[in-house]
């Protein structure tokens, strides 16, 4: 169990590392394409397209890690007024609601991938890219996010600080 958890945590971190590399890729792709243009060459159209798709993958691959890091901004203005035991309860309920939201989106995302494959959908830009290669990010990302939020619902850590907005 211990080693399983470590492997899982490693996967989540690994997804975030890929997201970080994609961020660097954004910079490289823009610089290369501008340089080519200014030297009178035809910039590869896939450089441009890769930045747009990169944004999607970056967001989706990194989002579960940010859940673990408690980095998704939330507002504790109202809940801070509740008595401490209530705050803990609300925090777990909110995390549970997040699990539900992510689970629905993971499920609908998986359906969307299936539909995209069945319909042979393309995303039409400079290239015709098979859509499922892109929408595949949804079931993966929201699925893992659901697991991360579930750890705040049932695990030892709480999503909220309860410190009257000191540590939102």
């Amino acid at each position: 169990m211990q080693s399983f958890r470590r492997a899982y945590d490693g996967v989540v971190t690994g997804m975030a590392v890929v997201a970080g590399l994609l961020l660097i890729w954004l910079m490289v792709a823009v610089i290369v394409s501008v340089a080519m243009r200014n030297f009178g060459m035809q910039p590869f159209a896939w450089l441009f397209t890769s930045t747009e798709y990169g944004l999607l993958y970056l967001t989706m691959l990194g989002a579960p890690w940010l859940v673990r890091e408690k980095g998704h901004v939330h507002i504790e203005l109202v809940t801070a007024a509740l008595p401490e035991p209530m705050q803990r309860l609300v925090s777990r309920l909110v995390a549970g609601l997040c699990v539900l939201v992510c689970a629905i989106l993971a499920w609908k995302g998986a359906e969307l991938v299936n539909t995209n494959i069945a319909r042979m959908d393309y995303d039409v830009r400079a290239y015709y890219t098979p859509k499922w290669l892109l929408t595949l990010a949804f079931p993966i990302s929201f699925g893992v996010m659901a697991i991360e939020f579930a750890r705040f619902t049932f695990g030892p850590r709480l999503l909220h600080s309860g410190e009257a907005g000191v540590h939102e």
Partner: protein
Amino acid sequence: EDTLSAVHAFPETLIYTQSFLQFVDKVNERGAGVVQIQVRGGPEAIGMFQQPDAVRDGVVDMVYTPGSFYGGAVPEKDALVTSNMSAPEARAKGGLDLIDQIHQDKMGVKYLGWFDSGVCYNLWTRDEPQLDANGNLDVSGLKLRGNAVYNAFFTEYLGAQVIDLPTTDVYSALERGVVDATGWTQIGLIDLKWNEFLNYRIEPCFFSTDLGVIVNLNKWNSLSEESRAILTEVALEHEQSSYEALQAKRDEDFAALEAGGMKVVTLEGEAAANYLAEARNKTLERMKGLMAEQPGGDANYDTLVDLFYDASK
């Protein structure tokens, strides 16, 4: 009474949207008590490129959009793009019936009408375009803005250095000299204010707009006989009247542009013929390739191309 919800791809103030809204008004007037269209908005209500899927999935009943926004699902839309006919002509020849059938088979939508047809695209440049010894357009010095519609033509035939930019970025890109040439339809340049920077229009024009109304097929089949009759009848009328209105609008725009200093450079003879033929061929090659990958294949490619092309023109 039947009601259909509808969205349009472009912002409400754009001329093409106004045309669609006129169609809606006509339907709502003639269909009082029978069929009504409720317009829910434009790209602010459903994203421009999500609208085709939305109508396919029944989230909305009717969408007014260029076929190019769902070219992955119905590559046959390039038959309209490369057409040299107006919608009424294509309708009379049976082309639009075939396109409707393809839409029903491949996408589960009814192709109700091809509006705002008869408008083609020009290349517009800031500096005087250069022609080579044979009178062909020389694009070597141009910084040409491209997009999915015309890239096949621009890069593969013209060999241009295409810079892909969304429409909203083009104004500032022209202002700063990031690009100095772009394709655009004959009308609309003034609305976008690009004429502040562009000084030359290159003739002949190529391609055609491919704006059409598509309706979710289940919804269509659920309508009463009378409702479908009214929708079809008004759509046919609007194919004719929107074509005529835009021809007039084009003449008006061209006159205004020329009064503002826009100059026209025309390719002649063989150079012009090659230019037009290749715009068409490169795009049709793309269509054929995509059709071949899909169920049904490219069996009706030749029929389709014939139905949308008048070789005598």
